[in-house]
């Protein structure tokens, strides 16, 4: 229904563009320069007058009619609904809707059939009303617009203002997205923290949500002892640490070499190599980690007589490090190249070698930028999901042995949410709490990185 009306409005819009333009030419007579605005703007004016109010109504009505009608159905059966819990109520409504409009029904009974009948009725009425109102708005808008087209009318200003409003609206989407993220995360996390106290979450040492409930499907109070996030945080930090051990030196030295030592041919080859490494999707890295790196580490370790997990932190960290190398390298390269040549000249003129110049003058000058780059790389590693889902472990484990399996935050988010979810259980909501934690940490790190660069920026010049 929605799409049908939407399409119809689009057609009206297109038609009005043409009609409005024609009308303006008609009204102007032989001298079109009498018109303040070009005919196309008159067309736009008419189109906007005719369709925009109707479009607004369409959107608002479509969004609102669902919950409102749901509410009316619930009102009809208020006695029976008293006894049901929230999930049961939602299931009931879902089934009733499915009976009425087609879809998967779990089971049916008289009550649901009755509800379905009411649904069908209400929706029919609602749709009819909506269509009538929309048609009304279109007609009224069109007539007003049409009759007001005359040479002096400054339709161009009108249209341009409308376009500006549209542009502003688009800009605001970015804010809405952030607000949406923050709100949804906070909202669900608060629901989580009503079930599991926050200090259990932040300071608990044991993470095992699968064991939180006595049996499947039973509504039981979750055991707060098994929602401790510390092993996850430790796991994330450990893997990130290993990743930075690889990516930090390799990325930095590659950047130094490429910016100060490499010939143009070497740079022409090396930069694309790094760009390709950066462009490989993380799922491919994860596959590589699970297929090649982890077994290799396992076999080497066992050859040396060590016990190595097939999901060792070393494997996951190593591959994540490889993924981050181009990130560190390109950021560092930018920063190192930004150090003025005059400093390098001054150092060389004092009789220092190139490496001394780099080590003692260039790098210290570029240090804030490099530190910032490392922080951003750490932030990226912390938020990385696929590599660890495919190569790291699932069980919580507090250890500093890289040959054991640890589990990071992102893996747990995925594990908790993939598969059947009941949206109210502590298990599912725990994922949101973890997501909030992740979001806050990465945001803070990015903020710090920015501040580091800003604060120390006036070093030279």
């Amino acid at each position, binding site marked *: 229904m929605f799409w049908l009306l939407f399409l119809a409005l689009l057609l009206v819009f297109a038609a009005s563009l043409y009609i409005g333009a024609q009308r303006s030419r008609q009204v102007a007579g032989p001298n079109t320069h009498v018109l303040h605005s070009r005919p196309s703007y008159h067309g736009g004016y008419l189109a906007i007058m005719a369709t925009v109010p109707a479009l607004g109504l369409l959107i608002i009505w479509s969004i609102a009619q669902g919950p409102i009608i749901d509410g009316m159905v619930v009102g009809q059966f208020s006695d029976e609904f008293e006894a049901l819990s929230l999930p049961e109520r939602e299931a009931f409504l879902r089934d009733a809707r499915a009976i009425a409009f087609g879809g998967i029904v779990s089971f049916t009974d008289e009550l649901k059939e009755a509800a379905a009948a009411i649904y069908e009725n209400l929706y029919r009425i609602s749709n009819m009303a909506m269509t009538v109102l929309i048609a009304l708005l279109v007609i009224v808008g069109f007539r007003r617009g049409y009759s007001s087209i005359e040479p002096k009318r400054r339709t161009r200003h009108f249209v*341009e203002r409308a376009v*500006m409003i549209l*542009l502003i609206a688009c*800009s605001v*989407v*970015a*804010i809405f*997205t*952030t607000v949406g*993220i923050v709100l*949804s*995360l906070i909202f669900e996390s608060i629901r989580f923290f009503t079930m599991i106290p926050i200090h259990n979450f932040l300071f608990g040492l044991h993470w095992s949500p699968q064991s939180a409930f006595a049996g499947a499907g039973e509504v039981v109070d979750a055991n707060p002892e098994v929602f401790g996030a510390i092993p996850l945080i430790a796991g994330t930090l450990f893997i990130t640490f290993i990743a930075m051990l690889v990516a930090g*030196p*390799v990325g*930095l*030295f*590659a950047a*130094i*070499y*490429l910016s100060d*030592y490499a010939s143009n041919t*070497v740079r022409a080859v*090396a930069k694309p*190599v*790094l760009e390709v*490494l950066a*462009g490989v*999707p*993380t*799922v*491919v890295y994860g*596959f*590589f980690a699970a*297929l090649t790196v982890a077994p290799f580490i396992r076999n080497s370790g066992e050859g040396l*007589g060590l*016990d190595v997990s097939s999901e060792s932190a070393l494997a996951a960290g190593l591959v994540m490090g*490889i993924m981050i*190398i181009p990130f560190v*390298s390109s950021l560092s390269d930018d920063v190192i190249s930004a150090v003025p040549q005059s400093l390098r000249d001054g150092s060389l003129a004092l009789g220092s*070698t*190139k*490496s*001394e110049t780099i*080590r003692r003058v260039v790098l210290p000058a570029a240090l804030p930028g490099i530190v910032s780059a490392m922080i951003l790389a750490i932030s990226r590693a912390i*938020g*990385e*999901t696929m590599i660890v*889902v495919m190569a790291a472990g699932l069980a919580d484990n507090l250890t500093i042995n890289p040959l054991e399996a640890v589990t990071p935050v*992102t893996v747990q*988010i*995925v594990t908790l*949410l*993939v598969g059947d979810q009941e*949206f109210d259980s502590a298990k599912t909501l725990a994922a949101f709490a973890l*997501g909030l934690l*992740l*979001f806050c940490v*990465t*945001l803070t790190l*990015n903020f710090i990185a920015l501040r580091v660069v800003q604060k120390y920026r006036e070093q030279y010049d």
Partner: protein
Amino acid sequence: MTDVAASPPAAGAPSQGQGLHTSDAARKRLKARYASEARFKFFGIAAVLTAAFFLVLLLSTIVGQAIPAFNQHYVTIPVDLSQESLDPNNEGEAVLRRVDYDAVVRNGLRSLFPYVESRGDRRTLGGLVSSGSAVRIRQAVLDDPDATIGQTSFAVPLDDVADLYFKGQVSEERFVETTGEASPTGTEGTIQILSTANDFRDLLADVKDFLGEQADEVERELASRERSLERAEIDIVSYRDRMPEEGADRREFFEDQVQILERGINGLNANIRDLTAELADLRARSTAAGADEVLTTELPSILVEINGGVVKASSINATAVEGEVIVPLTTTAAASGGDWSIREVVLPERNRKLDDRSLIYLDQLAAEERVERQFNMIFFSSGASREAELAGIWGAVVGSFFTMIVTLSLAFPLGVAAAIYLEEFAPKNRLTQLIEVNINNLAAVPSIVFGLLGLAVFLNTFGLPRSAPLVGGMVLALMTLPTIIIASRAALRAVPPSIREGALGVGASKLQTVLHHVLPLAMPGILTGTIIGMAQALGETAPLLMIGMVAFIVDIPSTPVDPSTVLPVQIFMWADFPEVLFRQKTSAAILVLLAFLVTMNALAVILRKRFERRW
């Protein structure tokens, strides 16, 4: 060094450099400094080479795994698709649809192997072809009955493990040249084959070696178990030691831990006992020279091909084997050296997916020239399947396509519009600064958080369908938005003010200036940024997992609201399956994905090179 005639250095001045910098001590220092320089440079080169090495390793691993997946073996079997057997009363499609095509396939296969009689053997035989063969025949009959009905043979795909056999990936095999004359004692059942020469001796030695290697491995495992035992015992002691100092709660916890450890120790001890016994047995057998050896499924298989038949050895000594006849011999006549052969399948039967019988049956099919290798169209044209040989990426590709369309149609207009407003029109006040900071932050948020947003808002609050490219596209659009905005702003900024001034000078309004003059010039940069953003979105997996595009979808989606999956998620799902062919197909799918990405990035680079102007 000769001294330049010069007045002596003035008193109090730092001593003039000539001697200072050219002395032996200075020269030595210089050498050390240059050594340090060389080391530094070496690290730089090493870093670049390391990155290159990893890339090469990654690509070669994937490509190596992927190449076998591009071919698929088919076997042509005789089938009875006559009108009489399928639809005797000519009732048409309804009847044709219900025919038991599995039986058609089974009967066809069996007709080639008359000697296969037991139920187990028949099941083995049936397992050699894909379980989807029946479906394919049915599809052919229904799609084109006139052409298909009446056919006497049909090419069906081999099961994934059988396919691997013909790609040489089941096991290493060794053939032994025979010199002696071999005399079989029968043509069926359990027989002996005696050779006049010591043809079996080397094989016997091989088997002994194999036992030795197994013994080594058991020894290693034993050592590992013993280490675990030690550790557990140490832990128990430490718990016991610390217990008196702890409070009641902790003591209870420690007690529990000790109990767990003790249970573990019991298990370990039992384990160690078994392993020790096994080790002794293996060592004994491997070192006993020349005796008879019984071939179990844990040992390499030895097959003797003689007189048109195949015998699977169950015991072997230097001059003879005893075993079961798999393919009946034609005669018990002696075969001279060179006319019969011994084949060793190195990987023990227990560790293989394909047992000896299967290998032999497949060999027969190959010998009858019924096996053909074709380009793997299934991979490119089918949807997902749990059967490795039937799985394809087409469903995921279409899903990705729909998702990308949704992403592009949302992110591009929104992103460009926002960029235009922010760059050209927005007043420089707190609000716009806030928006800018916001956008930069969004660009750095982990992708999984966007997935959570999609789950909470799109699926839950708005009730949109799970697993649909529509929702996936919306989530990815939000992710790509900051990239497009930032790139577009940079492109707009790069257009020099003189263009704007020129347009304003002839009386264009601000909006007209931007839309008619600035935007077209900035378009190449905007498109480049968009393509790059889309390439990133194409490779995204985590957020789509959150919104459920991970279901098992067999049908190809036909609209953006049908449940589907995308290529990277398909790769993720397949990576979990153990079958070797799935591993290969995963790699092949990765290559397809990388091909798309490379194309998109190359397009962006070409666009940039061709249209970028240097103002």
